[in-house]
């Protein structure tokens, strides 16, 4: 039995797409030397699971490099996953070859970000829209022609545009042509990769509204990839926030925006400039850059930048002391704490360093016990100008001993808004998980 024969009928609201443990690692180097010395993998997507119901819009949101586009392409099997499974309408896509999957593709279409380069400039609009129907042997030639014109109308363009070329259209119109093409085979799922990012704001609204209307009319399921949290709030039913190949948080849209639980989501929402000068506020800016996906941080991947890193139990510190230790750790890691060394190679007496450290970071005295000993040792390294040692020490002892580094968090908590559930990958929720 072929893959296409196994396709089950899925009703509205039933699971259309099921993703489990999906993983995609790329080889960072595939040259000859890599073959000899081995190369490290880029962990673009790592063990990601979620489901999409028919008729719903799920958004994958995250910053560049978080793996959202790779995830979407892996879902469609445009990229072979390293591990995990994807089931579409009950068919295990990962079990079949590309050739065998081809007939299924009429049910899964994709729209790309750049409306300039995703339309063949040598083809007329009509041909562009008819192409997928032709590829799947759908309808007769006359029917296809009629359907293409009808689709142009559906996406709020004119039937007469059938004979024009892409260059005659604006960005927004071209994105509508893309929509018409994606709809041509009457698919269930349309994956939209940054569908309005290249468009001007006023035109974005036009295209987003059209996408909504079409979904209402035809029951499409959208998987939208976007970096724009405002666009996502407008269009999505559920949102998955990605960070460095993991899903940090997944919840219904209203819940996610009104009740964000992951420190990364909170930082992300905090960072968006709100179009209202009266809501200017002191925002908490996230420090540092996203780490490399080669050897990403263990446990929670956000922990290296997390303002709420959980204090290691073995250190026996109060909350205030832990805050001070965190500030000190960041200063050492980023070398923003720079003493005035007397000469090129000379160090400084330890006392000078400890005095400065105490004044800047521990005005009420350094913590006792193990933490105090570690800070002493760090100061000695700084006095000897052994910065690498100092950095390694704070990272190893103050960060990697946290539960955040030890295990990958995965919790589900009850939602505050609505009656759904809320997946949050953060150990702060280890006690209220259901």
């Amino acid at each position: 039995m072929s893959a296409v024969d196994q396709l089950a009928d899925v009703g509205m609201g039933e699971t259309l797409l099921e993703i489990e443990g999906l993983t995609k690692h790329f080889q960072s180097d595939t040259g000859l030397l890599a073959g000899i010395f081995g190369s490290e993998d880029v962990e673009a997507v790592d063990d990601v699971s979620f489901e999409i119901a028919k008729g719903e819009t799920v958004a994958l949101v995250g910053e560049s490099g978080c793996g959202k586009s790779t995830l979407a392409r892996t879902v469609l099997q445009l990229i072979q996953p390293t591990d995990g499974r994807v089931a579409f309408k009950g068919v295990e896509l990962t079990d079949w070859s590309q050739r065998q999957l081809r007939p299924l593709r009429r049910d899964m279409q994709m729209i790309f970000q750049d409306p300039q380069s995703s339309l063949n400039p040598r083809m007329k609009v009509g041909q562009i829209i008819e192409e997928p129907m032709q590829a799947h042997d759908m309808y007769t030639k006359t029917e296809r022609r009629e359907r293409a014109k009808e689709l142009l109308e559906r996406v709020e363009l004119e039937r007469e545009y059938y004979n024009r070329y892409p260059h005659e259209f604006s960005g927004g119109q071209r994105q509508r042509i893309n929509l018409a093409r994606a709809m041509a085979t009457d698919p269930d799922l349309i994956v939209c990769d940054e569908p309005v990012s290249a468009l001007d704001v006023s035109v974005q609204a036009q295209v987003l509204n059209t996408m909504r209307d079409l979904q209402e009319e035809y029951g499409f399921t959208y998987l939208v990839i976007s970096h724009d949290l405002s666009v996502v709030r407008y269009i999505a039913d559920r949102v998955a926030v990605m960070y460095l190949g993991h899903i940090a948080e997944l919840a219904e849209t209203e819940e996610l925006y009104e009740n964000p639980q992951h420190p990364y989501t909170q930082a992300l929402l905090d960072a968006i400039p709100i179009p209202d000068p009266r809501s200017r506020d002191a925002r908490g800016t996230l420090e540092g850059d996203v780490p490399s996906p080669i050897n990403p941080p263990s446990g929670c991947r956000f922990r290296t930048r997390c303002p709420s890193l959980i204090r290691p139990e073995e250190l026996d510190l109060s909350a205030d002391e832990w805050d001070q230790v965190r500030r000190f750790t960041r200063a050492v890691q980023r070398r923003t704490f720079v003493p005035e060394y007397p000469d090129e190679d000379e160090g400084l007496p330890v006392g000078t360093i400890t005095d400065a450290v105490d004044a800047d970071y521990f005005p009420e005295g350094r913590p006792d016990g193990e933490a105090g000993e570690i800070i002493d040792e760090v100061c000695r390294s700084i006095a000897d100008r052994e910065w690498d040692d100092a950095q390694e020490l704070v990272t190893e002892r103050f960060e990697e001993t946290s539960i955040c580094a030890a295990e990958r968090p995965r919790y589900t908590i009850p939602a505050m808004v609505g009656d759904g559930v809320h997946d949050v990958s953060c150990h702060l929720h280890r006690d209220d998980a259901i």
Partner: protein
Amino acid sequence: MAETILEVTDLKTQFYTERGVVRAVDGVSFDVKQGEIVGLVGESGAGKSVTTSSVLRLIEEPGEVVGGEVDYMGRTIVGFEDTGEELVPRDEMLSETQMRDRIRGNEIAIIFQDPMESLNPVYTVGGQVKEFIELNRDISGKEAKAEAIEMLRRVGIPEAAERYGDYPHEFSGGMRQRVLIAMALGCRPNLIIADEPTTALDVTVEGQILELVNDLQEEFGTSFIWVTHDMGVVAEICDRVNVMYLGQIVEQGPVDEIFHDTQHPYTKALLNSIPRPDRTVGDLEPIEGTMPSARSPPSGCRFHPRCPDAREPCKEAEPVFQQVSETSDGTAHRASCLKHEDVGYWEADALEVEVEK
């Protein structure tokens, strides 16, 4: 009130193409006061970047500044006189050499959107910052290097001294943008023109940069012209805003007035068309159609074919850019819309919005 440092009056820039004359900037007037962040907003094609390039006289063939005045602290960057037949540059207009030596960089610096194109990939980051400082200030050698490192540290580059010798490709996008800001600030300019400096950046990085600009602006008292299409960024950092449409400024005023006492239908439509991160919006109201070409702008009010409020006179009468109100501290709020003129707008019939789909 703070001193006005830049005054642009009726600036006109045209591009001569095979298919006709493009009036990219068509009579733009605005000013910048000391220590102020002035926004220049609009959609692509509105003429924002051409305006700022004209202010720095960076317009190249086939473009040309054809009229208007740009005065920077008493110095004439652009100025013409009418000989009866044509407009010719006045004598006091700064020469190309004077622009290069005395204005660009050390008085007015510019930061572009794409930091990778603004940095030379084959020179070290620190070296480029140092060179910039040497060219524009009277320091050199060790002192300039120390200043460069200091500036890099100030803009939040971690391990600034260690990274001085790194090349641009070793920096992330946000870090490169910080380097450009360090470069611009290192020359202690009076005014920085920032042309969509955060558009290519991720939102958390954008947040870092906006924060940085706010801090540095307070510290150095630098003025900014902030070019952007993002109303969120405008709301976040600008003191006054100029909204551009098709080569003209259609509304100008303090940021709070622009958002909460909007006087031009285009500004209003723009604000209604953006999805909000902070609240759930039922339905967005898009602006119908697309911006027409600056080669053949519509008659009358340029926005009338897309304007939800358009009435008969809008087709013919060109609105005057004029003051419509004033805040308590005397800051003008200007707009160009017939609603504020006595040309029978209120008595006339509404126009059907006709747009090509």
